[in-house]
């Protein structure tokens, strides 16, 4: 086994999951908690962005954020069941992370906008926030599917890896 995910990456991930769940369940029902959890999620996302630039190894964006053509090529390889196993985030996973961070921030921003004098009570602004939040939920579902697929394909428990940080050591052909 090799250590892949540092404590900050892991703590960030699961705290964000919890914040998202709290937000989803508290929407329209307990607005104070909903806003608090939302701002907390936004702060987490921003902290992850900073860590993506100053953190070590597999936490760095430079390590896993790839150009669109690389991402597309990787998706094609997945479709042909010939994609390589990555120790860090694979190109598709990297794209998902970037997308999730952007949409989390957009969700929080649209939620914050509803607290301003100009937009408080605005049905249009409420609908936009709801629309973005549902988009985030959809991304989360795709994320879960991707994690499941990669876990099955490469015969490892990626959820467990994100909890404990360790993965099976690289074999020939695995990308480090």
């Amino acid at each position: 086994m090799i250590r892949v995910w540092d404590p900050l990456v892991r703590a960030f991930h699961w705290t964000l999951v919890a914040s998202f769940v709290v937000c989803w369940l508290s929407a329209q029902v307990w607005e104070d908690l909903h806003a608090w959890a939302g701002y907390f999620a936004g702060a987490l996302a921003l902290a992850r962005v900073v860590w993506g630039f100053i953190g070590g190894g597999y936490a760095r964006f430079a390590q896993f954020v790839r150009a669109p053509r690389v991402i597309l090529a990787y998706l094609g390889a997945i479709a042909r069941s010939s994609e390589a196993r990555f120790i860090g985030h694979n190109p598709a996973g990297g794209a998902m992370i970037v997308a999730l961070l952007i949409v989390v921030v957009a969700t929080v921003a649209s939620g914050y906008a509803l607290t301003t004098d100009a937009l408080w009570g605005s049905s249009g602004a409420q609908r936009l926030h709801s629309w973005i939040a549902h988009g985030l939920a959809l991304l989360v579902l795709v994320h879960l599917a991707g994690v499941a697929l990669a876990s099955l394909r490469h015969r490892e428990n990626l959820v467990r890896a994100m909890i404990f940080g360790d993965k099976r050591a690289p074999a020939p052909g695995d990308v480090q």
Partner: protein
Amino acid sequence: MKTMFALVALAAAAVAVGPAYAAGKCAAGPKSEWQPKSALESQLQTEGFTVKQIKTESGCYEVYATDKGGKRVNMAYNAQTLEKLDNAEAGEN
């Protein structure tokens, strides 16, 4: 046996008293029995509120308004009786 009785009594008391805390409920009947939003809006305006939005929820109208002092208020009204509910988030959408 005594503990059982005490627990049942406690549960019964909780059920009996419960509804008293949730003053006001959303309308249970069909939309045809509801009063129009405009009726609520007029009522609110005579009370001095500036209405930003009245949202239709399950049996309730959720109101986003500012009061005479400019303070934001969020209120819920039974769509049939236009009775104000204690809980502004009552008609969960």
